């Protein structure tokens, strides 16, 4: 038995570690271990691959590539702030997609040079190339939108769907030409030229796919692109005849699909609606219906002192965190505030909307960082009936997920999205930097509610001030 015959065995071990890793992620106590098991499996697979016959001449390139990519990935992952995690995941996901597309190009060139092109492998190669390239450019756009490099608003123009459809049709047509050539064994046009054009078209399609999607939908998009990359990797596995790539890529494709469906469902919209609907571009009816002062209602602003008094006389307080809390890093302040209230015998709970923040579980991660106990966090369905018994709902940097227009205004772009029933509480305190609308770009009727008091300021500062006031009265 030579070393090379052991490689498939190493791959089998790696495949098992990936399954165990995902399984470990299903419980907070085993998640860290699960992630590390998968990482160890990855290391085994990479080391084993160095012994493969195909790798021999490429060792210097590979070592250099691993050094550059490893340093870039490690530094990026260590330096990033917790608030920027979603776009970091988008970036790494795009890297994986790009790698899959490049693998497809190189393997196609190798098979052509060796004269072994055939239909099945070529189909898998084309799918790996196209899906990988779409994931690469789509992730780059998603990163740009979340990072604020590109407008987070939905970018739309006349004839957009025609252009996007045209790109898709051209990609499919050229792919058929390549497949035809692979079957016939001869090409009328240089196949590498076709591959180059397909690559450019697929990259353009990724851009066209994500640009019209508003910032509020980016979590769904990142999840979808994550599944895409998984699929692209699985297709690359077919091309290379590598079972490990098939298993790992497919596992991710399946998990990404589930997550994407869960997230779309949380917003009460189909995936098709997220991708092609007009969300993010505020409709005239939605905007007009929520104009301040239109029907004599106005905004009530309060200071930290009043907020502290309101809170200290409450019995039940529900905290509703949102992206503003993440941006301001206010989670530790919120924890301190909750501790103070609990020391006064006040019951504090947290209401977590499935898409609060920019990714599912975003709020859970942040509150976990501040050591907020798990049993205080409640899902939307659990907490909604409790709002009417709450004396104060404290909304910290959450906007669209509390907007009653989702229930009452059919003209609103978020109509039909399940929301937290914050408006049912006796009193509502909203901590917000300004009256600027949320990520969906629409106004929030909640702020005009007579029960609502606005405490303007950065979430961390505002919470800190309320804590100071509470300490004075303690």
């Amino acid at each position, binding site marked *: 038995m030579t070393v090379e015959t052991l490689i498939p065995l190493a791959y089998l071990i790696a495949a098992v570690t990936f399954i165990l*890793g*995902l399984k470990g*992620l299903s*419980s*907070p106590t085993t*998640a*860290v271990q699960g*992630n590390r098991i*998968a*990482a160890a499996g*990855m290391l085994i697979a990479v080391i084993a*691959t160095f012994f493969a016959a*195909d*790798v*021999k*001449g490429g060792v210097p*390139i*590979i070592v250099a*590539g*691993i050094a*550059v*990519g*490893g340093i870039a*990935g*490690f530094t990026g*992952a*260590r330096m990033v702030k*917790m608030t920027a*995690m979603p776009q*970091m*995941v988008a970036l*790494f996901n795009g890297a*994986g997609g*790009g*790698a899959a597309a*490049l*693998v497809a190009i190189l*393997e196609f*060139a190798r098979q052509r040079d060796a004269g072994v092109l055939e239909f099945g492998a070529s189909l898998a190669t084309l799918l790996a190339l196209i899906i990988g390239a779409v994931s690469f450019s789509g992730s780059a756009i998603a990163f740009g939108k979340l990072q604020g490099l590109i407008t987070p608003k939905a970018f739309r123009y006349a004839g957009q769907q025609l252009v996007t459809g045209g790109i898709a049709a051209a990609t499919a047509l050229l792919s058929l030409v390549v497949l035809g050539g692979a079957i016939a064994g001869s090409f009328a046009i240089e196949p590498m030229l076709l591959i180059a054009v397909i690559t450019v078209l697929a990259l353009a399609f990724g851009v066209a796919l994500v640009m019209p999607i508003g910032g509020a939908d980016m979590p769904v998009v990142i999840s979808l692109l*994550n599944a895409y990359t998984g699929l692209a*990797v*699985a297709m*690359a596995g*077919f091309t*290379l005849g590598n079972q*490990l*790539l*098939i298993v*790992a*890529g*497919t596992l991710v*494709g399946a998990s990404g699909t*589930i*997550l994407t469906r869960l997230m779309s469902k949380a917003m009460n919209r189909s995936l098709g609606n997220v991708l092609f609907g007009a969300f993010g571009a505020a409709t005239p009816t939605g905007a007009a219906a929520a104009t301040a002062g239109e029907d004599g209602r106005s905004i009530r602003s309060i200071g930290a002192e009043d907020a502290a008094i309101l809170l200290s006389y409450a019995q039940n307080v529900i905290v509703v965190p949102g992206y503003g809390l993440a941006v301001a890093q206010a989670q530790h302040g919120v924890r301190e505030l909750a501790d103070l209230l609990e020391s006064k015998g006040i019951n504090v709970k947290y209401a977590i909307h*499935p898409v609060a923040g920019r990714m599912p579980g975003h709020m*859970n991660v942040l509150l*976990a*960082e501040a*050591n907020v106990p798990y049993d205080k966090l409640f*899902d939307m369905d659990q907490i909604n009936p409790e709002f009417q018994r709450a004396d104060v709902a404290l909304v910290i940097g959450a906007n669209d997920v509390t907007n009653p227009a989702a229930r009452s205004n059919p003209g609103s772009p978020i109509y039909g999205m399940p929301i937290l029933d914050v408006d049912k509480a006796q009193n509502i305190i909203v901590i917000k930097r300004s009256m600027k609308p949320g990520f969906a770009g629409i106004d929030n009727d909640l702020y005009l509610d007579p029960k609502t008091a606005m405490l303007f300021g950065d979430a961390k500062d505002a919470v800190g001030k309320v804590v100071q006031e509470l300490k004075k009265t303690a």
Partner: protein
Amino acid sequence: MTGEAIVAAYVFILAIFVGFEVVSKVPSTLHTPLMSGANAIHGIVIVGAMLVASAIGGTLGTILGFLAVVLGTANVVGGFVVTDRMLAMFKQRPARKRE
């Protein structure tokens, strides 16, 4: 279909079922780390990148091979490190729960 292709198809189909089965049990609290962890796992494309890095040679082929390895490695390393950082926040919990 060749024998090898049919085996690959079996692996693909069975992996779909395993993926759905394993992942559908993850609580929503862990959705973000799950997405990130899954993201790291598709970094396995690095193995593919290594296998084809020197497949065609030449200047362009070498550059593309190098880029594929760079991107694949960034995916793997960045993915696992980010996930580990996220999960570290859950780990310290029990120690300070009752203070």
